[in-house]
């Protein structure tokens, strides 16, 4: 019996060893995979057991964590509801995170490697671990003014400090309240999300970054810049400006928006053509300088580039190898030209900043849990888009557009505002998109802005001046503290 007892003992010890091997496999090799599974609440619970850092504008917090008595120990709240949603995004138990909540998650959650020393201190002091904070470039006054001026109409506003690239306003309308998705009631979050997701107005779409539309007449700024940079044209260059122009090789007649000739004897200066937004003159100009020159100029302003602010913006496009009629249409921002509001704000900013386009950014500072500054963002140039003197010429032309031309509604009393309107046709039959891009003040510019109302934001009569320019004026006034 003794031999059998020994064998049975060996068998049982073997079974216990099998348990150890199996548990080792689970806890060491399968563990990363198991931790990453979507149904694993522990990951969320761990994340929600620390205080997540705030998203700050100056000292104002636009996203903060407040303690609860639940299993999820902190609740994410957005005190200003929908106003800053295009910037903060949401932070949800069920749907993860978007916006800055997503992009700066490592800092906000306190997982960033820069927090190593803090973590050690917390460990020894037995303090609850806490995430770091993120300070943004957004000017609350400008953002609030933009959201208020958009007033629920479908559209986007971007305001930039041209000298640094700091984004002062990033407005998307209609917006949503991120509090709807950050609660701890899973069923409620799901129904809220599904409702927002099914909304044909797409409130969760980040329009200033994600939506690209034909920029229409605002693109004439790029064409004008290309003409000035070619060295063959200046503000007083004479251009043909007839009532209609035949697009070569077609029977299509391109006309002006008011069906009138642009000037006496069908001739007009570049300056005046921009002021009254003369289509025939710019179409002709486009064909003269060619698609390569315009395309290159567009690229220098940021077209065909991917901007990460840190959220990724959609790439704005200028058509590849257009024929002559397509070039003519592209020169006035039609055909296949597509631009985001961010891109058109960069065009205005580049012109305002003596021809240098700065990289746009939202995060100005990363802060530790105790709000000590870990990192300051240093503004960086994207590149020079035009010569300083040409930028000055174009700037003066844009001031003329507001003072004498089509952008009268962008005026701010006592301040020289430069701008350009656009009314971009889209699919035939659909209402046009209303655009305005501009800056203020003309010298020592503090703010450059782009406004777009998709399909005119629902207005019966679409015009960039009537619809978009007043929004831009409101945002610029707020940014200039006027």
């Amino acid at each position: 019996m003794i031999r059998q007892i020994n064998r049975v003992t060996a068998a049982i010890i073997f079974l216990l060893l099998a348990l150890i091997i199996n548990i080792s496999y689970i806890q060491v090799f399968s563990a990363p995979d198991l931790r990453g599974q979507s149904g694993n609440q522990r990951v969320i619970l761990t994340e929600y057991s620390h205080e997540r850092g705030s998203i700050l504008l100056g000292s104002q917090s636009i996203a903060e964590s407040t303690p609860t008595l639940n299993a999820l120990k902190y609740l994410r709240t957005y005190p200003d509801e929908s106003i800053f949603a295009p910037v903060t995004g949401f932070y949800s138990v069920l749907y993860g995170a978007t916006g800055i909540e997503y992009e700066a998650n490592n800092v906000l959650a306190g997982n960033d490697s820069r927090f190593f020393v803090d973590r050690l201190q917390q460990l020894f002091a037995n303090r609850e671990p806490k995430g770091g904070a993120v300070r943004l470039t957004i000017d609350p006054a400008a953002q609030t003014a933009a959201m208020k001026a958009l007033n629920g109409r479908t559209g986007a506003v971007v305001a930039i400090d041209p000298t640094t690239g700091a984004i002062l306003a990033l407005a998307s309308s209609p917006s949503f309240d991120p509090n709807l998705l950050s609660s701890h009631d899973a069923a409620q979050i799901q129904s809220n999300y599904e409702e927002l997701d099914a909304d044909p107005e797409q409130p969760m779409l980040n329009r200033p970054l994600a939506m690209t539309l034909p920029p229409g007449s605002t693109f004439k700024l790029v064409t004008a810049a290309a003409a000035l940079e070619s060295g063959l044209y200046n503000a007083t260059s004479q251009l043909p400006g007839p009532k209609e122009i035949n697009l070569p090789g077609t029977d299509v007649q391109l006309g002006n928006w008011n069906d009138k000739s642009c000037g006496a004897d069908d001739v007009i200066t570049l300056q005046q053509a921009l002021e009254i937004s003369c289509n025939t003159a710019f179409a002709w100009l486009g064909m003269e300088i060619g698609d390569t020159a315009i395309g290159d100029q567009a690229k220098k302003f940021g077209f065909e580039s991917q901007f990460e602010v840190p959220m990724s913006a959609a790439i704005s496009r200028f058509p590849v190898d257009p024929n002559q009629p397509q070039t003519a249409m592209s020169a006035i921002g039609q055909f296949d030209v597509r631009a985001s509001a961010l891109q058109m704000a960069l065009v205005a900013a580049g012109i305002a900043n003596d021809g240098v386009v700065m990289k746009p950014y939202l995060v100005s500072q990363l802060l530790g849990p105790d709000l000590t500054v870990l990192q300051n963002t240093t503004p960086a140039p994207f590149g020079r888009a035009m010569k300083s003197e040409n930028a000055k010429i174009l700037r003066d032309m844009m001031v003329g557009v507001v003072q004498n031309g089509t952008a009268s509604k962008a005026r701010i009393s006592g301040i020289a505002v430069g701008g350009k309107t656009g009314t971009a046709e889209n699919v035939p039959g659909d209402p046009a998109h209303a655009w305005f891009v501009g800056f203020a003040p003309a010298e020592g510019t503090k703010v450059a802005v782009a406004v777009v109302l998709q399909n005119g934001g629902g207005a019966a009569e679409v015009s960039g001046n009537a619809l978009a320019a007043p929004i831009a004026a409101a945002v610029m006034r707020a940014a200039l503290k006027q």
Partner: protein
Amino acid sequence: MSTNLIRYRVSTRRSAELALLIGAWLIGVFAWILVDASTDAASLGGWTSLVSAGVLLLITHGVVRWQAPYADPLLLPCVAALNMLGLAMIHRLDAAAAQRAASNGSPPPTPDVYLQLTWMLVGLIAFIVVLTFVGDHRRLQRLTFTAGLAGIVLLFLPLLPVIGKEVNGAQLWISIFGLTFQPGELAKVALTIFFAGFLVGRRHSLALVHRKIFGIGIPRGKDVGPLFLVWLVALLVLILERDLGTSLLLFGLFTVMLYVATGRRSWVVLGSLLLAVGGAFAYRLFGHVQIRFDVWLRPFDDANGNGYQIVQSLYGLANGGIFGTGWGQGYPQLVPFAKTDFITSALGEELGLMGLIAILLLFAIIVERGARAAVATRDPFGNLFAIGLTTVIGLQTFIVIGGVTRLVPLTGLTTPFLSYGGSSLVANYIIIGILIRISNAARAPEITDAELVLRQNVDTK
């Protein structure tokens, strides 16, 4: 004569036992302190619990010193360490329950740890009673058929009306005056006595080959009968009470004891065949067996339904990783039945792989020490009985921990000494009491010290 002289100065190792016992108690105390520091458990009180547990263990040690001075010194400390760890984890899960109640605004639930502590007291009293009144384990052999009958009765008690109680789909409990008890736990002790007593008298006839079927030697029908009888009983338990774990344990136990008694491997082969056949039939016939098996193979296919328990258990283990989250830092309360069947997942989450290996090594030591007593005792009944009891603890540990870690299908049993549950704790303390009694008999010198001195004097002359 001279062989006896080799054991001339037998060390009792009782002081080692005491030191280890204090160590085991301190493991529990430190665990308790860490739980209190990282949760709100301190508000539940509990220092009196720790002190009373310590006093209980000290008294038990005193009784061992008095009643079984030559007993194995490792068994009691290992068991105490497991019991203390189990108490700490139950205390920790009480804290989680209290926290949850507070966040829901409901009144705080009664902590389970006090009831478990009471059962520890009952278990240790049972241990002391066994040690004191079963002076010689061979006396239990006389109770062979009484124990067999008692085992069967205990096993089927939960099926009786009025006292029988169904919990979570299994009819394993009886409820008397509001106290619930799982008689199956005691049945396994009674049935081990029966198996050992029954087999020890028949082992020679069982070893005889009567005829061969498929190359497997089969003894006479009247000798094979008991095997099929037990197989049938195990199957009945499975069918009527839906208790997969106990039937698996009883079947495995009987197969092992047959093998040890007869020394014939054909019994193991036959047992495995019957297990396979029984398993296949159960899979076909019973929905709950089929679910358990399917969940074992593909738990993530139904992660929020039938697979929920095992998936949550795996998530807990993964969260623990190698070193664990630390006491009170994990989320063991997310695993259903964390205090009972799934206490291994809870410990694995907070103590990590290192903690679980330590726990499994404690079980391995208990098994090895039990086997050592089985080998060293001088009577066949004692050999068989001791290895039977050791197998019960080892096999039960394997079935339940293997189940919650998805090594084998989940069948549902308590983890010896760790899990919340009085019946299991009392039954396992009785088992350890008997093993200590047997080990004492095995290690005790056959002659007294006085005789030794006398003989030594004779030798030196």
